[in-house]
């Protein structure tokens, strides 16, 4: 089965399975967004593990692998686990995380027990129940695909019907109650959707890993946008991408379980979002920090050059790097880098081995010096901080203060002439 064969979807069976996987991953991601925003991610995990005994029991009782019957079994134990968690947190001193942890493992343990018993009976191979742990998309038959797709569509329709109610429920439950929304019923519906979303994935993704397909797309999407509707679309798209890859690999290597592959892909997407997303991503944040660092360093250099000029009233004189270092301690390499950066920006000029301020450079150095001294004066005069304690603070504030705040400082200090150390505050 080659790449082209798969992605032209010429085989009707491939068409079915792929469509089914896309639908279930997309709808699980959309439902997962609300689970995520309601901060119930762990609950999704608990449900995912707790559907296993239900699936096994349904198989044992009915003796056949009818997807609808299995789905009902899964739904029942999934819900039961939530009720048990709720009961434990309400009536004992045990906290919710402990309750989730123990219920999850007990239900899953029973599930594994039943699964082993079924396998011992020798009909697990025909049943395909062994795929329920880690999933096998290629093993979906037409009846499975139809059932799971119908459930997935049902999930999407329900979410779109209750979109505004679920949003409010996740953001401000108390307010929702005061405007008369049936909060308990809405909660019940949202929880049922979560359980169903997990159940649709039991065969293609596997019970264990379905929780990841529920929550990870939402977590990844949150990095890219601050709009809920876009977040839902992105999460669905991420989920579908993972599902498509998983389904393809399931055909390519039929012995390979699908679930882990889907989870690998969605995790890569999440890690990528975490690193690369604009504004919220780690790299963007580091970049911003770097820009600020450079800016502060550059302004410190301009300030030093200006203050050297102040000493002999010769602001545009050429100076060596050593003389700057004598005035202000800094890393010589960083000083050189900064001077070249400032030259590129038109604040300094290089003449031989020496450096001089340009007119713009002098202006900016003067401004930083001015802000530094104004802030020192403000701290000592208005806030009554000892004059020998104000320097450090002014060192950082001189880079932050805006022209608007400067004007207000000037006004409050009545256009002062000298700072607390009797240095003149430049115009």
């Amino acid at each position, binding site marked *: 089965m080659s790449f082209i064969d798969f992605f032209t979807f010429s085989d009707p069976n491939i068409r079915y399975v792929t469509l089914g996987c896309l639908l279930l991953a997309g709808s699980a991601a959309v439902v997962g967004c609300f689970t995520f*925003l309601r*901060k119930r991610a762990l609950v999704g995990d608990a449900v995912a593990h707790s559907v296993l005994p239900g699936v096994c029991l349904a198989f044992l009782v009915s003796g056949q692998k009818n997807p609808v019957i299995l789905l009902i079994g899964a739904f029942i134990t999934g819900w039961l686990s939530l009720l048990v968690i709720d009961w434990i947190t309400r009536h004992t001193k045990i906290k919710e995380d402990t309750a989730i942890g123990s219920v999850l493992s007990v239900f899953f343990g029973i599930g594994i027990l039943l699964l082993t018993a079924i396998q011992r009976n020798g009909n697990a191979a025909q049943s395909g129940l062994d795929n329920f742990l880690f999933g096998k998309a290629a093993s979906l038959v037409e009846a499975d695909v139809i059932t799971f797709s119908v459930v997935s569509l049902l999930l999407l329709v329900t979410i779109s*019907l*209750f979109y*505004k*109610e679920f*949003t*409010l429920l*996740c*953001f*401000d439950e*108390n*307010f929702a*109650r*005061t*405007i*008369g*929304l049936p909060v308990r019923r809405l909660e019940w519906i949202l929880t049922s959707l979560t359980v169903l979303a997990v159940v649709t994935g039991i065969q293609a993704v596997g019970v264990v890993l379905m929780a990841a397909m529920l929550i990870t797309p939402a977590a990844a999407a*949150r990095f890219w*946008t*601050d*709009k*809920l509707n876009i*977040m839902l679309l992105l999460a669905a798209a991420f989920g579908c991408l993972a599902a498509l890859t998983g389904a393809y690999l399931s055909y390519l290597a039929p012995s390979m379980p699908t679930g882990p592959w889907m989870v690998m892909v969605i995790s890569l997407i999440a890690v990528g979002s975490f690193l690369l997303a604009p504004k919220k991503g780690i790299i963007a944040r580091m970049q911003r920090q770097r820009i600020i660092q450079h800016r502060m360093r550059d302004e410190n250099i301009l300030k030093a050059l200006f203050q050297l000029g102040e000493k002999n009233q010769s602001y545009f004189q050429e100076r060596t790097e050593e003389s700057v270092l004598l005035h202000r301690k800094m890393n010589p390499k960083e000083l050189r880098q900064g001077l070249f950066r400032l030259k590129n920006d038109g604040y300094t000029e290089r003449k031989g081995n020496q450096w001089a301020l340009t007119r713009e450079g002098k202006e900016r150095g003067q401004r930083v010096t001015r802000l530094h001294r104004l802030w020192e004066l403000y701290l000592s005069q208005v806030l009554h901080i000892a004059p020998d304690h104000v320097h450090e603070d002014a060192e950082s504030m001189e880079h932050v203060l805006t022209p608007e705040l400067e004007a207000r400082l000037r006004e409050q200090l009545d256009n002062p002439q000298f700072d607390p150390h009797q240095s003149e505050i430049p115009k």
Partner: protein
Amino acid sequence: MIIHTQNPVIEVHDLTASYDRRPVLWNVDLTLPEGSLIGIIGPNGAGKSTLLKAIMGLIPVNSGYVHLFGKTIDEVRSKVSYVPQRESVDWDFPASALDVVLMGRYGKLGLFRRVRPSDREVALSCLQKVGMEAFANRQISQLSGGQQQRVFLARALAQDAQLYCLDEPFAGVDIATENTIMEILRTMRKEGKTVLVVHHDLQSAAEYFDWVILLNVRLVACGPVEQVLTPELLQETYGGKLTILAKAGELLQKEQYPVREKKK
């Protein structure tokens, strides 16, 4: 000093409420007049927010009842608006200021119905009233504390109610926001609306409110501001005279006794 009114907008009758079996409101009985600005005042842990939540029907009570406009809360929800404490929600939620204000229209819209352009107009004009129209599309986590509080107030305005219950609207906001909010509350009173505010600053209370509830687990006083904010009553509210009551409450919790005996 508990002064009752005729035709009260709120009637709290013998209300007792508790957290984990410890009563935080003890036999509270009060009536509040329509069209006034009312402050709920008392020390930390006095049950101020709990009283507001009990009035809004958000917490179960051990005994007693609350009537609003002479009816139960469920019959008059559309006439009552609640502004929770700012810290009670996660402001990192993916929503803009306008989205939050639009939530104030959900009650009028009802289930399944989409937000209409007219709702959007109302929401925008409410943002304008609180001076936040420039921030309509700003993500809510990027707003300052004072701006977030204004957004909450705008959401309440969008509900177009008769009675407004605000929980600590001045907590952690700048002075400019406090003045803006106060101005809006006064305008609302002028329009005949009743405004109930949980407040912790005694200094401004006398200036802000025309009716005051002094609370410290039990009701100390309730009446017109000039009769209630007296040194004796304040001493009774803030002074340490309630130790026996506090001890009794702790006992109920420690021994896990029921706050009210079950009726046969």
